[in-house]
């Protein structure tokens, strides 16, 4: 073997250590990637339980997927509501608003709290109450969906 030159240089020691590590672990030649079996064995040696870790990742991905679906559904609903809102007011009467409010109250079971003579209210007040109840009902539906 032709011996290497042993002259000392003043290089960055941190970089040197890093390169030694890469040399040891084959980071330089991509063709030397470890096999799936070697990876599993390495992980166990490193103190990582591959089965447990995998199960945790799958669970967290499922939760993230559920949250995304919920966000998408919320987006869709808000867009539909915005579209409906652009025609709100057309043809809405005290009677139709009272009917919607009663329908929403029957969903939330809060009829007693809001019991009053709806017909004496202004149309603006009725719209405001109807929108508030609709938001409450939507939130309750979301919570129910999340619990599932």
């Amino acid at each position, binding site marked *: 073997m032709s011996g290497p030159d042993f002259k000392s240089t003043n290089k*960055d020691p941190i970089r*040197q*250590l890093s390169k030694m590590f890469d*040399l040891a672990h084959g980071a330089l030649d991509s063709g030397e990637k470890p096999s799936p079996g070697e990876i599993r064995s390495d992980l166990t040696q*490193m103190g*990582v339980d591959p089965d447990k870790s995998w199960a945790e990742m799958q669970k967290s991905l499922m939760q993230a997927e559920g*949250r*995304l679906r919920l966000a998408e559904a919320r987006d869709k609903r808000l867009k539909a509501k915005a579209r409906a809102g652009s025609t709100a007011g057309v043809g809405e009467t005290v009677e139709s608003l009272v009917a919607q409010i009663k329908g929403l109250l029957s969903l939330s079971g809060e009829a007693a709290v809001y019991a009053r003579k709806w017909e004496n209210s202004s149309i603006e007040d009725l719209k405001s109450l109807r929108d508030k109840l609709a938001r409450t009902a939507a939130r309750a539906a979301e919570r129910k969906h999340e619990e599932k």
Partner: protein
Amino acid sequence: MPPEAAHQCKRVFEYFKGPENRQRYEAMVHYAEWQVRRWSWSAGKHGTSLPNGKTGRDVLHEVVADVSTIGVGGKCIRSFRSEIPVEVAIRWIINSKVSHSFESTESRLRSDSVATVPGGEEIDLMESAKPFWNPSGDRMSAETRTRASERSQRFLEFARGDRVVYGMLILLRDEDLEGPAQTLAERLGVDINEIYTSRKRLATLVRRFRESGDKIDERP
């Protein structure tokens, strides 16, 4: 919610979800664990976790959550461009988090992935095809550099008994020659297969040296 954010989340789910992607996941945990060990070794430290106590596996899980969760403003907590493959993006972010963790404990905190490239231009590494940044002394304290220098010298002594391994380390130190394997084989006058087996012996030496607490006396 911008459609790109939902698209990114779905790409990440597709990449990791389901038994058919398990090997990908394990390879990524492996990568993250090695990154943590690489930085720890290079900074002259003994642990197998980040200074904040997180392991490579913890880092990976955190990264996957960041790139697949919609945050404030309807964007993913951490976004990457749609043309960047999921694997590459996740490796970048792992590398960023690991290096950041070591560098920030050195009070040389980099607030984000922005780096200055030769020519003075500032780029965001997440937005470019530039390779990952590597451990180096310019962002570490003098104390860490000294500790690393001592480790480097002691490790050379530790490996002196293995002719080929020692030769590779000297070529690396003096000529910055790290590969390819064929060149190393030619320079050291050995068969290329000897280089491959020597690398495995080098890995064993690194592990033993670390386990001994950097004690030269315990060399094989």
